């Protein structure tokens, strides 16, 4: 909310500088987001009276004006855009100065004639304002500064009022707050309504007393609808409200000052007032020019025939004030906050009024605001306030009370505040305090409906005392080892391993579009959870797989990098039998490299997967080839799989190169981890390496060859592939090391030769391999 400090000073004569006050408010009440100085940049702009206008002798479209600035006269040259007449009073920028736009005004000659300033359009003074000339009335003297004439010698604080403090969405509430903070007295507005002799004759019927606990109205006759005086307009403008006419402006003024939304009906268009729920399919055309279809969840103000306003939200167009209006009904009412909120949400219509009603109003302010508005309208529109007012009200509820002990306040704040200070703070904020042996009974004022319990009282004491005056305390407790969450613990180790292998961690959104959901997730669309209100269609479905978006990231990075190695660990959301999704943690690892062959990429990702399994002590994995991927099982549960991104879908991400994927079902994986590894005694006898190269049918898998060789003799400990290529005539060439080792003796060369011969023989016979010599 925008708070004018001049307005605030009407009710609390604080002495602090604006910056100090802002700091005080920020630390004890509400954050001040910005301090505005509305007169800034207008120094040197004055009200000038145009004495005489002549055509510029040397230019067709220029004029010379003699301008009276009170103590002196100057000559100003202006163009025909400023449609100004002799005798008018307008803003004049007097040289030398700079306008807010940065334009320099200096004395200069234009075609031989001296110009000592510039006539300013509103847009030249206030960026964003219309291109019109402001004209001042007879009460404004030539030579006064523009800032003074427009009541802009003010400072405006932009406050971020928290939604619990409905009492501070208006000037009077903030004045009370400032009074408590500065110790300066609070002055409440004092006035008397000058009533006419004619007595009020208005029928008001409230059918929904729970929804409208109070309805008050006055009638004012013989009003003249016109522009408001400058001081009023300026206060509204500085508060962020556009002035309209004197009647509307008064209601807005009171809204800003008292927080009480008021409404004005044209009395000649309303025969009586009924507060009721709308009937099914009733319609109302409102002030904003829109027609709303209503039902019983919406409270309306109606006349004998039809709705004339959406209660607490917006008035109807038909009964609104127009230039011809002479007699008005002024409404000040209270409505049930939650009902107004629901209605406003249902209609999709949020207004200054509804926002205030839904936060709850001060029930004692309604009458005061009504009287104040009536008196102001009388003053500003020459109307007659008809004698008396209508008040339809439920019984006033008792003031609520909170009991709290000094001990509690001290304990919850960690502060040795005494009972004197406690009473002082609460009294300044408008609470009434009764004390009995360090137990307080506190009467909550009607404007503080947010205070309901001892903790709320603690907050009042704490913030006014100043949270920064508390001595920070430290936690104490028994020192016991803290259990680590194994899922998080192993996730972090896994991440560390992956980066040590050269993979970068990418984080993606947990939602994706319909195409990715359907074609790349591995789950049908109906197994996806759907967002009811996605920001855009790209984010419509909760992911069931990490692969689609990670593949997208791989592709994007291939524009800048030759090789991309990335991974993500995150949740996927699967439909199960429960209402909530099964949130499963998954890992996806990807490698792609420009122009790289399939085999090399595959071997690299497989090496990564094997290294991870081995690091975590998982040696026994059953790998099975299934539906174009290679799946690893432990105890018959699918733990991880190796695959290629499907070539037919590569178009999604404009992928030109092979992309290999290792995915891991982390939630199944981590409970199987064996951190404790069993020591194997080291052989003290050297191993002997022999190499072998064979040509073989390309359909014979490496696994088959390896299995065959290892079975030949237990002295063969390892078979390790080191070269592989395909020959044109349908053969592949494999080269591998064989490691011979015994744990009991040093092997003789002759012995190894013998086994090696058997190996060659078996390979030739069983697999029809041809050994390269």
């Amino acid at each position, binding site marked *: 909310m925008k708070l004018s400090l001049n307005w605030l000073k009407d009710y609390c004569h604080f002495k602090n500088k604006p910056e100090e006050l802002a700091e005080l408010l920020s*630390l*004890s*009440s*509400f*954050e001040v987001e910005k301090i505005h100085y509305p007169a800034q940049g207008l120094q040197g702009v004055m009200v000038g009276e145009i004495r005489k206008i002549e055509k510029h002798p040397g230019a067709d479209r220029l004029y010379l004006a003699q301008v009276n600035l009170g103590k002196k006269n100057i000559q100003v040259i202006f163009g025909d855009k400023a449609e100004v007449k002799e005798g008018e009073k307008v803003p004049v920028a007097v040289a030398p100065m700079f306008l807010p736009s940065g334009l320099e005004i200096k004395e200069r000659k234009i075609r031989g004639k001296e110009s000592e300033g510039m006539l300013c359009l509103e847009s030249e003074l206030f960026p964003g304002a219309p291109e019109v000339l402001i004209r001042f009335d007879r009460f404004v003297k030539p030579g006064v500064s523009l800032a003074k004439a427009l009541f802009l010698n003010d400072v405006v604080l932009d406050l971020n009022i*928290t*939604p*619990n*403090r409905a009492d501070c969405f208006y000037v009077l509430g903030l004045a009370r707050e400032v009074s408590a903070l500065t110790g300066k007295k609070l002055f409440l507005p004092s006035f008397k309504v000058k009533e006419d002799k004619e007595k009020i004759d208005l029928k008001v019927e409230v059918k929904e007393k729970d929804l409208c606990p109070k309805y008050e109205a006055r009638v004012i006759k013989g009003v003249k609808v016109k522009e408001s005086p400058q001081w009023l307009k300026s206060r509204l403008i500085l508060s962020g409200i556009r002035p309209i006419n004197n009647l509307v402006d008064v209601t807005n003024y009171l809204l800003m000052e008292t927080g009480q939304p008021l409404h004005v009906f044209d009395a000649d268009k309303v025969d009586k007032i009924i507060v009721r729920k709308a009937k099914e399919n009733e319609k109302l055309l409102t002030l904003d020019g829109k027609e709303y279809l209503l039902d019983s969840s919406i409270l309306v103000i109606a006349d004998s025939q039809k709705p004339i306003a959406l209660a607490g939200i917006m008035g109807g167009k038909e009964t609104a004030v127009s230039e011809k209006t002479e007699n008005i009904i002024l409404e000040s009412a209270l409505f049930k906050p939650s009902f107004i*909120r*629901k209605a406003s949400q249902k209609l999709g219509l949020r207004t200054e009024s509804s926002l205030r009603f839904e936060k709850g109003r001060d029930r004692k302010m309604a009458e005061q605001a009504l009287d104040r508005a009536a008196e102001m309208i009388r003053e500003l529109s020459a109307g007659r306030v008809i004698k008396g007012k209508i008040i339809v009200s439920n019984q006033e509820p008792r003031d609520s009370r909170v009991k709290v002990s000094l001990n509690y306040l001290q304990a*919850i*704040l*960690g*502060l040795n505040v005494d009972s004197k200070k406690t009473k002082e703070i609460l009294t300044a904020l408008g609470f009434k305090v009764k004390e009995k042996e360090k137990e307080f009974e506190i009467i909550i004022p009607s404007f503080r409906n947010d205070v309901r*319990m001892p*903790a709320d009282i*603690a*907050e009042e004491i*704490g913030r006014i005392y100043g*949270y*920064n005056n*508390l*001595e*920070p*305390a*430290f*936690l104490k*407790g028994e*020192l016991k080892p*803290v*259990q680590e*969450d194994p899922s*998080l613990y192993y996730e*972090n180790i896994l991440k560390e391993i992956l*980066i040590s*292998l050269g993979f*970068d*961690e*990418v*984080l*993606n*959104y*947990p939602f994706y579009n319909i195409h990715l959901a359907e074609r790349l997730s591995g789950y049908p669309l109906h197994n996806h*959870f*759907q*967002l*009811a*209100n996605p*920001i855009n269609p790209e984010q419509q479905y*909760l992911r069931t797989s990490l692969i689609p978006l990670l593949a*997208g*990231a791989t592709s994007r990075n291939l524009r*800048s990098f030759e090789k991309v*190695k*990335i991974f993500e660990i995150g*949740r996927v*959301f699967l439909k199960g039998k429960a209402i*909530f999704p099964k*949130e499963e943690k998954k890992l996806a690892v990807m490698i792609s490299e420009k122009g790289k062959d399939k085999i090399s990429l595959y071997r690299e990702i497989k090496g990564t997967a094997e290294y991870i399994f081995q690091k975590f002590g998982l040696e026994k994995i059953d790998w099975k080839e299934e539906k174009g991927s290679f799946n690893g099982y432990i105890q018959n549960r699918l733990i991880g799989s190796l695959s290629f991104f499907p070539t037919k879908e590569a178009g999604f991400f404009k992928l030109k190169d092979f992309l290999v994927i290792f995915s891991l079902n982390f939630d199944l994986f981590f409970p199987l981890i064996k951190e404790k590894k069993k020591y194997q005694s080291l052989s003290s006898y050297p191993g002997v390496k022999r190499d072998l190269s064979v040509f073989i049918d390309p359909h014979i898998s490496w696994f088959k060859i390896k299995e065959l060789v290892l079975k030949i003799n237990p002295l063969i400990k390892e078979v390790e592939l080191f070269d592989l290529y395909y020959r044109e005539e349908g053969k592949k060439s494999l080269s591998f090391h064989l490691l011979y080792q015994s744990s009991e003796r040093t092997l003789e060369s002759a012995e190894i030769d013998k086994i090696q011969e058997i190996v060659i023989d078996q390979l030739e016979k069983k697999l029809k391999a041809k050994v390269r010599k």
Partner: protein
Amino acid sequence: MKEKFQQLKLRILEELNSVSRLDDLEKLTIKYLGRRAGELTVILRNLKNLPLTERKETGKLVNKIKEEIEKVFKEKEKNLKATIKEEFFDYTLPGKKADQGSLNPLTQFLNKVIKIFFTMGFEVVQGQEVESEEYNFDLLNIPKDHPARDLWDTFYLTGGLLLRTHTSPMQLRLMEKRKPPVRLIVPGRVFRHEAIDASHESVFYQCEGLVIDEGLSLAHLIGTLKVFLEAVFGEIKIRARPSFFPFVEPGIEVDMSCLICKGKGCSVCKQSGWIEMLGAGMIHPEVLKNMKVDIKKYSGFAFGLGIDRLTMLYHGIDDIRLFHAGDLKFIKQF
């Protein structure tokens, strides 16, 4: 005659001994072995003037000496070159790139946060990302049809569930299985239905803190946050301001003195000298009741750290969208 040649050989070797530079060696080579006027070359050339018998024997001898000398010279050259190699080592040669990846800076920072709280005896717990209105709002004292709900723009799923708007629902879920005293943190992803720009994301990370024990006060909350922020950012000042979160009372926001300008005012802190760091407060009695905690015996506090914002401040990152952009040019910097 023989002796004369042996002496020559000795002289050459002596001279060679004193050579320590390649160009001196070259001069010496020309002097003795040069094709036109090298002493040994000349001797060999003049052999033809000797009598035939002498010629044969002398020729043999001189050739042998020449071969020896050439061999020694070659060796010397090799040695000298090797010395040069060592003397002129080029330390500006580029290093061979290490194949090491990076964690997303969010993960790195979150790990830092977790580690600090872990050393302070906080248990680290994970929570679900899809929540119900009941846990995300109702049980946290944010009733339906209350304006406080406007503080959270929410992604709803068809069917009524929602993506959690904060990590706070975990306060309740965790207390279903625990009894005070507790010290917990819950790091995790949260979601807001918000337009995205350089300082607003719809997907971001929070770390919820929850402490319930006997005799806890607001001063404990401020003390705990102070030591945490100091552990992350070093010597800083903090201040607390009143704020409103329906699940705490009193509620506060904590600012930290601006790291960039040290409190003097700059564009990062919008000239205020302070940077808003986190929201916190004493757990609201209604929420404690919802946790089935005896409010006569226990009190507690909770706080919510915005991890993205803290990470941005820590590294000087100026665009929040980079965290989820998947751009390795960004990630590899960390």
